[in-house]
């Protein structure tokens, strides 16, 4: 066993002003060149642990560090961040919050200039790093002109330019569309440095991981081992912590439940396809189509909707009907116009007259209050919607502006959304999952028939996301029309009835989930990749034609 490069012993963190320790004494090692994936449910202390590796905790973040972290033998408590920066490269979640300068080249040079490297060496290393992430041609551009994925690759280049011994990445693809995420990982896996990665979206990266460390909700290490073990023999232990699993592992669990044991542990969709193809026979797919919406009425009618943001046309000539009781997913790459369409559908940004009708009423002609009787909208960042000082007041607000006395209805919703014990808390002090539930509850207080949500599962662990989806499905079963914007095509495959596929502001497809998601050419044209199970199914067309339509985990039953 080689000497560990990063060695954390008994690490926990307490932020100034917070009463509780985050993490429960985590022990973690990363060997030189090793690729370690760190998993754990929301709030278990993954991010805090990542901040201790280069000494940001305790040096830059006002927090207390208990335990010891060493990097190449240097104790992070006594070594300045600037010294550790040369050994530990960091890539954070938000690409916007990492840009400091006005040009791509200056950005990559920034750290090297801080380290006082000679100017010639700075530019040589910067050019090399930009080459490594495929941005060599963009050196003179303003980082703001790059796509989100481009800016995240730039952040990777900034870290690589320092020639670190270990790279620490905290959910680097959370803000990216699936293709941009795939691109980032394509470049990351070629790096020689050791990697410590925190990530939800495992399908594209799992094949390159040497070891997986799973934390439980309390913040102690539950499991540590090679992916084949963590997602194979011990997958049930892993799943019990509520972390995301690779789609192949989720499928294997379902297969096991119906008596199909795979010979090998599949980690990627491709391996799953191969393992399934290797079997002599497979049981029939369940393929129960989701029942059609209960009503023939149209909930939302969009007609020739064009939206301009300044010079740019964000949406061009979009027309579609959403039947009452439908579950519609709006998908597309970053910048395709998904949020714009959702916001126009809910009247958040007033559309042109006649372009959007909800229940037959022109959205453009409605006052804000009449609108919120018809449609509830949940923003990507729940905090944006909070307007009062307590959770209960937040719910009562919608009723109060209509002159309805709060009371019964508020209590009922607080119970239903598991927020009753926080009724007097300030909304800003809730956890991320609770904020999200509160924002959905506030949208529902006036009992609208249509609910529109922008990226509702963003940044949540698997059990939180599943909880929210269960809630949305229940609301949908009650007859409400649900529209979501999402990047997660597997989620769409599992739960939505219809898909609206956008590319460059145009609606390129609108139809049943099965039809749109099984059309690889169409997805590719829109800049997307087929969802993981479709990629597995693609390998089954010859061997097991009756499984070629596999789209949802629910098909395996």
């Amino acid at each position, binding site marked *: 066993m080689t000497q560990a490069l990063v060695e954390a012993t008994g690490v926990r963190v307490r932020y100034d002003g917070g009463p509780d320790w985050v993490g429960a004494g985590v022990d973690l090692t990363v060997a030189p060149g090793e690729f370690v994936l760190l998993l754990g449910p929301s709030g278990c202390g993954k991010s805090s642990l990542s901040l201790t590796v280069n000494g940001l905790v305790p040096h830059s973040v006002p927090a207390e560090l208990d335990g010891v972290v060493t990097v190449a033998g240097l104790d992070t408590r006594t070594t300045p961040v600037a010294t550790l920066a040369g050994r530990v490269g960091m890539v954070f979640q938000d690409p916007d919050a990492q840009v400091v300068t006005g040009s791509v080249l200056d950005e990559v040079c920034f750290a090297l200039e801080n380290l006082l490297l000679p100017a010639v060496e700075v530019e040589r290393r910067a050019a090399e790093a930009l080459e490594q992430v495929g941005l060599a041609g963009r050196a003179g551009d303003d980082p703001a002109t790059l796509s989100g994925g481009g800016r995240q690759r730039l952040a990777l280049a900034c870290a690589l330019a320092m020639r670190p011994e270990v790279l620490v990445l905290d959910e680097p693809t959370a803000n990216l569309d699936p293709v941009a995420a795939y691109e980032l990982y394509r470049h990351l896996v070629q790096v020689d440095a050791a990697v410590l990665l925190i990530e939800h979206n495992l399908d594209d990266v799992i094949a390159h991981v040497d070891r997986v460390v799973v934390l439980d909700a309390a913040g102690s290490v539950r499991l540590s081992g090679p992916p084949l073990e963590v997602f194979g023999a011990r997958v049930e232990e892993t799943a019990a912590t509520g972390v995301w699993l690779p789609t192949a592992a989720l499928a294997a669990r379902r297969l096991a439940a119906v008596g199909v044991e795979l010979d090998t542990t599949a980690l990627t969709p491709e391996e799953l396809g191969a393992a399934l193809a290797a079997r002599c026979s497979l049981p029939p797919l369940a393929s129960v189509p989701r029942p059609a919406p209960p009503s023939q009425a149209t909930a939302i009618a969009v007609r020739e909707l064009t939206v301009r943001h300044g010079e740019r046309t964000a949406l061009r000539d979009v027309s579609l009907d959403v039947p009452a009781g439908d579950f519609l997913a709006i998908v597309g790459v970053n910048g395709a116009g998904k949020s714009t369409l959702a916001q126009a559908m809910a009247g958040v940004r007033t559309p042109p007259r006649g372009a959007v009708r909800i229940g037959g009423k022109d959205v453009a002609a409605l006052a804000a209050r009449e609108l*919120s009787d018809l449609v509830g909208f949940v923003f990507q960042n729940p905090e944006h919607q909070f307007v009062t000082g307590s959770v209960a007041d937040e719910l009562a607000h919608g009723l109060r502006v209509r002159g309805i006395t709060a009371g019964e209805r508020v209590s009922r919703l607080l119970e239903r959304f598991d927020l009753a014990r926080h009724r007097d808390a300030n909304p800003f002090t809730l956890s991320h999952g609770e904020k999200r539930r509160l924002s959905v509850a506030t949208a529902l207080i006036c009992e609208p028939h249509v609910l529109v949500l922008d990226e509702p599962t963003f940044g949540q662990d698997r059990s939180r996301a599943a909880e929210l989806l269960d809630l949305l499905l229940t609301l949908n079963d009650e007859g409400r029309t649900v529209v979501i914007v999402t990047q997660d095509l597997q989620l769409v495959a599992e739960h939505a009835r219809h898909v609206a596929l956008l590319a460059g502001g145009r609606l390129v497809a609108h139809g049943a989930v099965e039809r749109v998601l099984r059309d690889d050419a169409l997805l590719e044209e829109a800049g997307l990749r087929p969802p993981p199970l479709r990629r597995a199914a693609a390998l089954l067309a010859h061997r097991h034609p009756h499984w070629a339509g596999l789209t949802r985990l629910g098909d395996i039953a």
Partner: protein
Amino acid sequence: MTVRDSAAEQHQRLEEPRHERPESGAGQALPGRVEPPVRRPSRRAFLARLNPLAKIAATLPAMLFLLLVRDPWTPGLFAVAAVALAWAAGGVRPRWSLIVIPAALAWFTLLFALLAAEHVTAGTPVVVLGLRAGALEYGLATTLRMLALLSLALLGGVGTTGPDLVRALVQNLRVPYRFAYGALAALRFVPRFRHELEVITAAHRVRGVTGGRVRRTGRMLIPLQASAIRHAERVSLAMDARAFGAHPTRTERHRLRFGRAEVWFVTACWAVSVLLAVAVALSGQLRLLTSFHW
């Protein structure tokens, strides 16, 4: 080889002749290093290549002087000189302003003429629209002064980028780099906050937020502030993680010199300013602010 070549090429593309490599550092011969190729003559305008501080130094005395001047001739001459220099040496090509400037001149002259005080108009003949000659002259002088100050400010900023100004402040004026680069990073927050505020406004509209403008604004400030603080914290962590503040100085890839061209430019601008002022004074048209009356 490709890496080195592309570094040199980017260097050439991004750097302008006034930016010179620091002698130390480059000289610490990295073995086999390719010397930076001979730079193509820049197509950037003369003013864009000057040290940003030189442009500010060149125009500042004239601007201060104009604050004290009350006749229309001096600001008129300075405005013409500044625009001419920006046109000839700064590559500024006014198109719509050729129509806008005269129109604005006429409009503001009338406007300021209406505001003229009794003692400047008394005893002068009525010229047009019941306005006296003294009032019109006062209006024209004020308007031209505004125009001259704007033109000089334009001249002081022609071709200056934010990063260049920061480099000049750090290198030539010894402003602490932590402060200067921190301010530069903070400037990048502005478009983000503008977008954030738009989203919050929309979100609050959806919630049917009522009450007066002040209360509505107050409510929006809370989420805006929450996200602003978080964003600032993240950016500052990202900067720390890149060794910001590691040493008392940073490597300067672009050396901004205050060289002979800058000295000549500043001297010439000052000389022209004095000449213009003297010329107006000799022709008997110069009037200076004598008291704080209008």
